[in-house]
């Protein structure tokens, strides 16, 4: 679709079209029922308007057939609607496996983004067109919400955990980014831009930004500074389990449960280590809650992800 449909924002992601199609269906359904009821009401009201002061209505006051009709037909319609909506929803929240991951941190009242290659931006995010892009997001204070109307997607950004969102931009351009969860005085100024660039242009842009250390590297430095290595090395036998090859694996816990070592788990392991104790280890790891920022945690996670190996 290349012409501009009134009141429909720019379609700039692979999902935009899907969402709009759902919308058109919904609007069609609503128009149908609105017209149906309006015509029915107006026609009956005028056709059976009171012509004499003492006139009363008829005694026709129930019909099982009608009752069933107007229960079952709307029911089928809404079930269909539900199914369609759920399909789109799962696509909206299940990132493709090859998505490139960016980190986004919300704080009153700005968006901080970090590229996998280390570039940082504030209230801006530059991404190449056509690249499946996943944002791993958290907040340093209250709940925010990351919303790009042109991409038809949003997700709340919640302190204390990670949420994520993905999109594949289809059109170069600058698109509004809004915070849609009320977050305090400057909520309406917590806005920014997502800039979608042609791949070459994006490369040029990346090169032009002074590269700070990539998160994984920064994480490695932190790892050294916080002396994590005192307990975690590649070879087993220290106080803590080796972290090599940990990411994505199932971890057995002391209480018999198993959990998958995803970002959320790594984060919790660093900030609240005792909550999930690895089987075979003592809960001696101190909490780093007060020593690291959200960005530090992300860097540490990236570093741990980069530790390849099959230790254990």
């Amino acid at each position, binding site marked *: 679709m290349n012409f501009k449909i009134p009141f429909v924002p720019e379609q700039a992601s692979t999902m935009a079209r899907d969402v709009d199609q759902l919308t058109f269906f919904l609007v069609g359904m609503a128009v149908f029922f609105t017209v149906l009821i*309006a015509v*029915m009401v107006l026609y009956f009201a005028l056709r059976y308007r009171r012509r004499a002061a*003492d006139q009363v209505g008829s005694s026709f006051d129930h019909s099982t057939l009608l*009752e069933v009709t107007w229960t079952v037909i709307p029911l089928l319609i809404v079930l269909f609607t539900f199914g369609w909506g759920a399909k789109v*929803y799962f696509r909206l929240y299940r990132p493709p496996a090859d998505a490139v991951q960016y980190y986004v941190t919300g704080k009153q009242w700005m968006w901080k983004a970090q590229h996998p290659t280390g570039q940082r931006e504030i209230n801006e995010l530059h991404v190449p067109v056509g690249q499946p892009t996943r944002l791993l997001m958290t907040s340093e204070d209250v709940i925010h919400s990351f919303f790009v109307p042109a991409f038809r997607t949003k997700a709340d950004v919640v302190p204390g955990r990670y949420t994520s969102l993905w999109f594949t931009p289809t059109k170069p351009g600058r698109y509004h980014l809004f915070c849609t969860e009320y*977050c305090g005085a400057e909520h*309406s100024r917590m806005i920014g831009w997502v800039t979608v660039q042609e791949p070459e242009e994006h490369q040029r842009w990346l090169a032009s930004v002074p590269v700070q250390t990539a998160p994984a590297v920064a994480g490695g430095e932190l790892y050294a500074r916080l002396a994590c290595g005192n307990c975690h090395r590649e070879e087993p036998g220290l106080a803590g389990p080796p972290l090599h090859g940990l990411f994505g694996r199932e971890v057995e816990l002391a209480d018999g449960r198993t959990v998958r070592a995803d970002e959320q788990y790594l984060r919790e392991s660093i900030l609240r280590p005792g909550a999930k104790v690895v089987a075979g280890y003592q809960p001696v790891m101190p909490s780093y809650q007060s020593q690291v920022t959200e960005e530090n945690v992300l860097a540490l996670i990236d570093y741990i992800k980069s530790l390849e190996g099959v230790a254990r």
Partner: protein
Amino acid sequence: MSSEAMAAERPNYLNATTGLKSWLLTLDHKRIGILYLLGVSAFFVLGGIFAMLIRLELVTPAGDLVQPDAYNRLFTSHGVLMVFFFLIPAIPGVLGNFLIPIMIGTKDLAFPRLNLLSWYLFMAGGTMALGGIIAGGVDTGWTFYTPYSSTYTMTAVIPVGLGVFVNGFSGILTGLNFMVTIHRMRAPGMTWFRLPLFVWSHYATSLIQVLGTPVLAITLVLLVFERAFHIGVFDPTRGGDPVFFQHLFWFYSHPAVYIMILPSMAVISELIAAFARKRIFGYHAVAFASIGIAVLGFLVWGHHMFVSGQSVYAGTAFSLLTMLVAIPSAIKVFNWSFTLYQGSVSFQTPMLYALGFIGLFMIGGLTGVFLGTLGFDVHVHDTYFVVAHFHYVMVGGTIMGYLGGLHYWWPKITGKLYPEFWGKISALLVFVGFNLTFFPQFLLGYMGMPRRYHAYPEEWQVLNVLSSAGASILGLGFVLPVLYFAWSLKKGPLAGRNPWGARGLEWETDSPPPTLNFDEPPVMNHEVYPYADGEPGSTSGMKPASAH
């Protein structure tokens, strides 16, 4: 005329006793209804003034009229006052209180003292909230989401939260009172299926009040504790989960939207029956639909949290159930519309409101179904689309019903007739102003305009100006009734027992009714809404419509 004049001189609940004290200590459900009328009207005017300031700010894209934090206080105060202190107590407090005992043919509610206490709790809660709003204000949005409300804001969350808490108990006690009354106090012959639909719908409302409101109460207690003592249940830095607050909040607040709409639906059923002079089509279906809404309404709260980080699987279940809760509403709309078929339809003011209700509630409800559709909601959540949806159901739905009901029973409550011409003008203004205010907001929302924004990108100005223009028409539409109702108290012609030729026990007693409602304890010896069969209690020989 002379018999009407006589009726007005007879002792009634208004002139039975006099003096301020006789009002402030009254146990008469009808007087308490009037006390509610005064209370909720005051809160409505305040909430309305806040709304006008919001719309004034949004005329220009730059945030130039008020500072951002003042704006945040405006919409929060607007939402809190309108929802908790106007819309939820309005119809049950005023019309429910006044009418339920009369409609079921008894002398009063089961617990008159409790009823008075409810009003005082409502006023006390309102005063606390208002105190908080004046001294310090509150800027969390009416939803009080943590951790902003618990840890970050500097505003008066505690007094406002406690105000809502206290007011909650007012609602719980009212609901309890209604339920016991409906169960235990019905006149002889008044079986469940002879109850007016007004009563059924209020019964459903009461169920929600009793089952839902306590969860809000404890949630607010936890919020206050969190704020005062940092207990950590909603604080991620102490291991709490802020999203848990949303679960607790919406467990109440979604059903609460049905606390708002069911009483209005109650009114609409009565209006349509009276002005189509016909028994409501599918009486049983409509009655059960009320209960269905109340019960299913408890199973869908997660639809406010589709993008909150709630599990997508839970979201899916909530979406499915949301679809189901739309069905009983659909059943009601179809039955009301079909009642007009072979009716004897007249277009006095209350009926205009009722017809307006059907149209606007339907649009609001259908857009509710949009929002319940997962893939769609992700895009429009927390945008003006949602704002438009809920004003369509709350203003286009509930307030239309409330105003229609006030007009319809005004003669019964006061014994006086309001001026029909001005009534129609105001109904028209409200309808037109309302659509102009809120329809553009659907478009704004789909285009991406977030809610709770005090400034916005320029490309959205035109629609915002339209919306603000509509709001002023709407405001005018709301001011008019205040004026002519006041006028009618002094100058309005006497109403007589049954100015509409309507059926129902309330029309078989004086206007205004005597203190104990009936001279003789009534007996219900016929079906409800007996328009077609000229049952006892009818005015002289009405003819069926099919007879012409």
